[in-house]
């Protein structure tokens, strides 16, 4: 059951009115359809979140471990702990289900990719492309993450409490990416929607050719990418940041009010009638 007050507040904060770009690409979320959009997949497992179990993945191939997770969901387990994941690749991918999934260690590449719904907690580190194309749910990593963190993220919260590599949130299309430490070069590259929060420093070419969305940075920015510009922090920005950081036990080192806000300059948008040569004249 949705909390009515919370929903109302989120609407007041404008979180349901993100507009993508240009004249024809506006997307409005209809409050009346929220329940409809929070659909459950037809073949989802009816799991009980209070029913918990665990297994050891030390001697398992990734496919075997992922199959085991599905077998346990089919048996009704809604809370699963995976011991000794051993930085294996592609663990916890493609889960389209309500589920509390705990990894008691580190994941390799493509961990928790293409998920829609589960709450994933990772005690260690993740490799490249964690939570790529994630649709909904939460993924929280206690340590560092590799490059392409949250690539093409579409929804949900993706949190790394340590440092992350380059190209964080490349082509991000929604949701929130929250980083406790620093992020590498080309973060937010071609970002289309959603929010990224970097509490530490950001590498060069931040937000390069971003279409839309917002990047908040608590530390130093080595350099902005093409068409990424500073925006003005508003009370709504601060309120949203405070709420999100509280959720995950994080703090902005220099205070939320002092964070930098990066948005699209919108000079590279091609949703007008200008020919490329004319566009060059303007730029």
């Amino acid at each position, binding site marked *: 059951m949705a909390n009515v007050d919370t929903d109302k507040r989120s609407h007041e904060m404008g979180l349901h009115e993100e507009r993508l770009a240009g004249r024809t690409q506006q997307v409005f979320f209809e409050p009346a359809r929220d329940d409809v959009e929070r659909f459950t997949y037809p073949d989802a497992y009816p799991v009980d979140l209070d029913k918990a179990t665990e297994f050891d993945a030390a001697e398992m191939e990734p496919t075997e471990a992922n199959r085991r997770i599905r077998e346990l969901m089919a048996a009704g387990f809604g809370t699963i702990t995976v011991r000794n994941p051993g930085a294996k*690749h592609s663990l916890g991918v493609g889960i389209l289900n309500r589920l509390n999934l705990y990894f008691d260690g580190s994941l*390799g590449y493509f961990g928790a990719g293409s998920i829609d719904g589960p709450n994933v907690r990772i005690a260690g*580190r993740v490799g490249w492309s964690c939570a790529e194309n994630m649709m909904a749910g939460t993924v929280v990593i206690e340590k560092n993450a590799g490059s392409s963190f949250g690539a093409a993220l579409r929804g949900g919260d993706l949190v790394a409490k340590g440092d992350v*590599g380059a190209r964080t949130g490349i082509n991000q299309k929604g949701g929130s990416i929250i980083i406790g430490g620093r992020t590498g*070069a080309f973060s937010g590259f071609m970002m289309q929607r959603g929010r990224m929060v970097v509490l530490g420093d950001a590498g*060069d070419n931040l937000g390069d050719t971003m279409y839309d969305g917002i990047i908040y940075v608590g530390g130093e920015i080595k350099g902005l990418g093409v068409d990424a510009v500073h925006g003005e922090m508003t009370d709504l920005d601060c309120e949203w940041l405070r709420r999100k950081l509280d959720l995950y036990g994080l703090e902005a080192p220099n205070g939320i009010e002092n964070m930098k806000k990066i948005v699209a300059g919108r000079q590279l948008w091609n949703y007008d009638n200008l020919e490329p040569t004319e566009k060059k004249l303007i730029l």
Partner: protein
Amino acid sequence: MCGIAGLIHKTGGSADVGAELTAMLQALKHRGPDSTGFGLYGDSHPNSYVARVKFAEEADMAQDHDIGERIAERKRATDAHLDRIGARVVAATAATPYAYRYELDYNGDLRELADELESVDGTEILSIGRALELVKDLGDAQAVAGKYGLDSFTGTHAIGHTRMATESDVDISSAHPYWAYPFSDISVVHNGQLTNYWTKRRALERTGHRFMSSCDSELIAVYIADRLTRGDALEEALERSISELDGVFTYVVATADALGMAKDLMAAKPMVLCETDDFVALGSEEVAIRRLFNEEIDTFDPYEGEVLVWRT
């Protein structure tokens, strides 16, 4: 794609670097199953060299009925060349029917030694070093380590490579690591592509350097060796390479007493690193590092343009 790995015991002393690197490279087999190479640094011998030499490719053994006699001829000629320049063969061991390990008592010019060895048609030096022994062959890490007895190799540091052949043949000559001809004890493994390879190669050739292959990874080895002979510290040479080498790359370089890595400004090629007080392990994927630890470890990705160096 290819996989690269390296490790160093910072406190010196002799460790099982052969077995350790074998385990790491076996975990990276899926990144390159065609060939595997090891650059192993053992005890340094101030007055002698170890040369790893091949007299044929593995494929020649099945395709050429006279290959046994050809190899014997090449070895006899090589021994004669060594004798002519005063290099005394302390031991010559056949690691495989086509690859030998020479221990040489030699105090002369290293380039002359290398040129003499390579003047024999069909002979190729894989490495010459006072500490370095470079072994590469077709197959995965366990196969190569088993064939050359590398599991028992002890030393201070090592680098390695698993190769997925893309732009050259599946043979030993195209496998990594590359030795920086004719500089002893410098080897490189590399994941990526250099886009100014020919420009840099021609520039280095004009200063007298010679290349044994057309692989861009060899260029990095020669480039670093060149910078070191010009007086750069290893850190300086690596930092300079970030701006002077174009392309996407992550590479690991080793010298007689150091291990270093550099990552280009795009950070397009992976590297994961784990450092403790006395040990460093790094590789294209964390699964390689995990082969060396039973306990939980902290790892991180070096950032774009980052250079790191460790010494024994």
